[in-house]
């Protein structure tokens, strides 16, 4: 990759005013949920940001995360920040392929050993390394090899952060998250299916300007994942008043009431969808009339059905699945017994919860 100029020089070349840069930093601070008082610090750090080498590894994934992040930058100042980062390897975006691409990765690693940033999207299959390989290298080997010289790792998307869809029951490839394999490097999880584009760029900008952000117990930056969607939802006043849509075409849905009864996972899902929104702040799923699926939470595929209200017990689906596999011919019997036990457990556990009870317990 050619030696790229610093952001300050890029701004000058492109005729971007300092005022525009200050506007960008103010909006970035807002997106990062940082105090506006941090704006001068962000500006100073970004201006003097070194050209961090970024190696982007795509494993068991659908390319949705890459698709999303490429939508985040029209040719604006964000684009320049991406130019200020040296994206040395990204096999979906780079022109080279196969061994030539691998050489680029190895070269970047050697050149910036101990300083480069690794971004991973996709889960890693560990049941059989042959399930997913790149240039004949298994995902597991490539991750271990590349992570060894990394300053930090960003796990982009729920697959890299928590295993995601690959990890969903019965997890045929033995898919795991990055954090299951790499234990000696700082890992920032940016979950979502996909994550909001500006959240991904925001985390990278935070890493460049202020270092590793403050993380929650699931390794997510608190700035973006500090609040439940429910707490910031514009439909929240309807929830508080007990006004719910009971179907997708009933009066409640037409009136824009709360989607809690249609399975909305907003109360238990931490993400910035309700404030940052999607497509340049146009809308987000709940605003489009669909309940939140909870895609930034671990095991969201196995959490008991997208359209079941949170107050309905989900049952132990994972255990049922395992019993069916392990039991073979006996699975019918075992499954039946387990189903009965589960039903009894569910009935016992099931308390009718209304919005006010949920509010009290949160």
């Amino acid at each position, binding site marked *: 990759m050619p030696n790229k100029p610093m952001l300050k020089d890029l701004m000058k070349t492109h005729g971007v*005013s300092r005022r525009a840069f200050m506007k960008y930093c103010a909006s970035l601070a807002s997106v990062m949920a940082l105090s506006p008082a941090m704006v001068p610090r962000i500006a100073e750090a970004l201006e003097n940001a070194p050209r961090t080498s970024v190696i982007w590894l795509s494993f068991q994934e659908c390319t949705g995360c890459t698709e999303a992040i490429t939508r985040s930058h029209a040719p604006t100042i964000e684009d320049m920040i991406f130019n200020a980062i040296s994206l040395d390897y990204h096999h979906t975006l780079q022109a080279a392929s196969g061994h030539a691409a691998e050489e680029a990765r190895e070269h970047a690693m050697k050149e910036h050993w101990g300083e480069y940033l690794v971004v991973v999207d996709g889960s890693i299959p560990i049941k059989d390394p042959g399930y997913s390989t790149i240039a004949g290298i298994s995902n597991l080997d490539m991750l271990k090899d590349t992570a060894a010289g990394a300053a930090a790792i960003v796990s982009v998307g729920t697959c890299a952060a928590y295993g995601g869809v690959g990890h969903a029951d019965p997890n045929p490839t033995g898919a795991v998250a990055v954090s299951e394999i790499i234990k000696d490097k700082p890992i920032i999880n940016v979950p979502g299916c996909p994550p909001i584009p500006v959240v991904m760029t925001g985390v990278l900008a935070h890493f460049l300007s202020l270092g590793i952000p403050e993380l929650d117990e699931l390794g997510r930056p608190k700035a973006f994942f500090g609040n439940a969607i429910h707490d910031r939802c514009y439909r929240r006043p309807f929830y508080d008043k007990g006004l719910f849509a009971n179907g997708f075409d009933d009066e409640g849905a037409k009136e824009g009431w709360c989607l809690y009864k249609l399975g909305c996972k907003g109360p238990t899902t931490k993400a910035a969808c309700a404030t940052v929104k999607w497509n340049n702040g146009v809308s987000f799923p709940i605003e489009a009339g669909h309940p939140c699926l909870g895609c930034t939470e671990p095991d969201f595929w196995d959490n008991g059905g997208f359209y079941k209200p949170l107050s309905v017990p989900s049952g132990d689906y994972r255990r049922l699945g395992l019993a069916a596999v392990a039991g073979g011919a006996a699975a019918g019997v075992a499954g039946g017994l387990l189903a009965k036990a589960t039903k009894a457990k569910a009935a016992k556990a099931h308390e009718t919860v209304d919005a006010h009870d949920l509010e009290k317990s949160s």
Partner: protein
Amino acid sequence: MDCKQPNDQTSAEMADVLSFVTTGNARPLLHEIRHALDKLLAIGETTIIDLGALPFGPGDARELEDILGQGEIDATMTIMGRSHVRETGVPGVWRIDHFDEEDEVQSRFIEITFMPDILKTQREDAERGLEHLRERLAELEGNRQT
């Protein structure tokens, strides 16, 4: 608000209903602004409030607008998209709304200050302006000589 496309009458009714949806956050915000204005007058300290960080319903926005109102200055800046800076009817309290190049809201702030920084000419821009002016003058002088 929703993607569904009701007829005009329903849409107008809905907008009217929604404009009264509040989270109750406008009142405490107005008190925060009052404290900040107190501080500005007492010690000259500027306060910036990020409106994007607050749950805010259409009714809250309406209440805020009703109380603060429109002041003497209303400036639109074209900097990587539009930016709208206006002094409210309470002098010293400014609304700053940044939009991107597609005119989508990027960020919204209330700034309690005597003059928002973004309105001032930035030193780096003035330096670049001076450089540009010198170059143009040098071109002009060069043309005259030839």
